[in-house]
């Protein structure tokens, strides 16, 4: 063993982290899976990227990835944004794994701010990058106290925030990082995903892991676990709704990004999940502003 390390001293270990670190992170992950929604502290390492750029998610991915895995990385739903490209490149280099942008082909999906529109299956693991894992943080700044509140399941103050929303805005105005109760026990921050994605966490067949690098916490939602968004009886949880379909692929019932087109108020709404949108367009779906195949030269002999 020592020989192998000695001869390749200058090279990185598979998936960047050394084996002992990966074992420690895996133990934290196993504990997190055993206690759904509970934040397990772990010895977060320095990674070759700034904290806040997904170091928690990267460490979780590094601990669970194997040579046969196919990795997809999404940032705000897109595969081609800086964070996604950089992390995909990182694992290509340090683990030499196959990467993909297609949700159905991936075995591990590391994500920031979105859950893919395509339903996940039992062979997939979704790894979330988490900036602030503590859902009680804004009501109770003391870490010692929040731990006590979790231990006692003392979550009344969570509803104070929701009450304030309704009192001032007439509805629950929290639109992302919307707190959930996991398995009827722990209140959990689902990371800053839009509340549109909250229902996808419930009874999901895929394993969901959450890594917070700066805050040094890992938590998990095991497959087919009950995840309920907090609400009031007379103001039930409601995900965002969009009045128009995607301008490129015509999809409805998906999360849309607003794109400003000009300085005269022109705008379009497009799928935030680029893979889903591309897949639909390839299957022949066209939205209002999708390029015309005749104008762009395709199908010219019609």
């Amino acid at each position: 063993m020592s020989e192998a390390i000695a001869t390749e001293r200058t090279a990185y270990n598979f998936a960047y982290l050394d084996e002992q670190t990966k074992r420690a992170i895996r133990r934290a992950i196993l504990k997190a899976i055993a206690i759904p929604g509970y934040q397990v502290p772990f010895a977060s390492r320095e990674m070759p990227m700034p904290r806040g750029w997904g170091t928690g998610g990267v460490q979780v991915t590094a601990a669970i990835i194997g040579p046969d895995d196919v990795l997809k990385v999404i940032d705000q739903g897109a595969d081609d944004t800086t964070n996604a490209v950089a992390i995909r490149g990182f694992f290509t280099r340090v683990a030499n794994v196959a990467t993909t942008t297609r949700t159905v082909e991936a075995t591990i999906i590391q994500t920031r701010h979105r859950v893919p529109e395509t339903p996940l299956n039992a062979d997939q693991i979704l790894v979330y990058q988490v900036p602030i894992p503590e859902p009680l943080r804004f009501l109770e700044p003391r870490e010692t106290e929040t731990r006590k509140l979790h231990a006692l399941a003392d979550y009344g103050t969570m509803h104070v925030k929701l009450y304030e929303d309704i009192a001032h805005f007439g509805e629950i105005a929290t639109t992302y990082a919307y707190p959930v109760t996991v398995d009827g026990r722990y209140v959990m921050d689902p990371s800053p995903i839009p509340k549109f994605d909250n229902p996808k966490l419930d009874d999901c067949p895929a394993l969901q892991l959450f890594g917070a690098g700066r805050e040094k916490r890992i938590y998990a939602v095991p497959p087919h676990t009950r995840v309920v968004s907090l609400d009031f009886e007379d103001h039930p949880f409601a995900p965002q709704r969009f009045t128009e379909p995607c301008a490129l692929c015509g999809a409805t019932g998906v999360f849309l990004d607003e794109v400003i087109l000009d300085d005269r108020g022109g705008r379009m709404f497009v799928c935030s999940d680029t893979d889903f949108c591309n897949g639909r367009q390839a299957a022949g779906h066209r939205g209002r502003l999708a390029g015309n195949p005749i104008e762009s030269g395709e199908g010219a002999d019609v």
Partner: protein
Amino acid sequence: MCEEPLLIAEGLTKFYGARLGCRDVSFTLHAGEVLAVVGESGSGKSTLLGLLSTELAPSAGHVRYSMRDGSLRDLAELSEPERRLLLRTDWGFVRQSPEAGLRMAVSAGANVGERLMAVGWRHYGNIRGAAADWLGRVEIAADRIDDSPKSFSGGMRQRLQIARNLVTAPRLVFMDEPTGGLDVSVQARLLDLIRSLVADLGLAVVIVTHDLAVARLLSHRIMVMKEGCVIEEGLTDQVLDDPQAAYTQLLVSSVLQS
């Protein structure tokens, strides 16, 4: 009204290291009874209040409390969830500074509703209704329900703090100088309000004050403390009109006579 005492303190003693907080304080409190603890600054009044309300752990002695189910429990032996439930349902704590007792960042309605949400209320309309009702009872205008306590005057904040504590219909309320820092006319209105609420709801109150007028107005019984010890106790009018201990005589005679 009720034969069984609500709260029994036995030999309560607190040392802060070598320094004495209070020594060997014993008394019983019945439901609906108002007990004033008076004495100068540093006499151990607030320490005693901390010991009774389980915020401080006694160096010696016990506090027993008659729970809602009728059982008499030693407060030191309550589990943490039981203790928290007691604090936010059956007890109230009105602090001298409303900023310490209120959640200043959220609206008045949320302040009053917080205890209800903590004990499991999940119907917004009901919570808001209860909050509005209680704001009315402490004479805060209904249209201030969504305002932050930061925009309230000192007297309003103190009334809001009282509403926040009474919303779960507690049986025992601790008050630490509730009228401190308020001007005289506001004090008078607040005392009037506290007195009528206490009478209407049959609250038991332990009120700590250095103001003998407050004690005379509100309390049935009085305990005078000096240097951590109780030096005199009895019915309020009896103690104030016919003080026996030299220090009590000094205290009573030092009040400006009008």
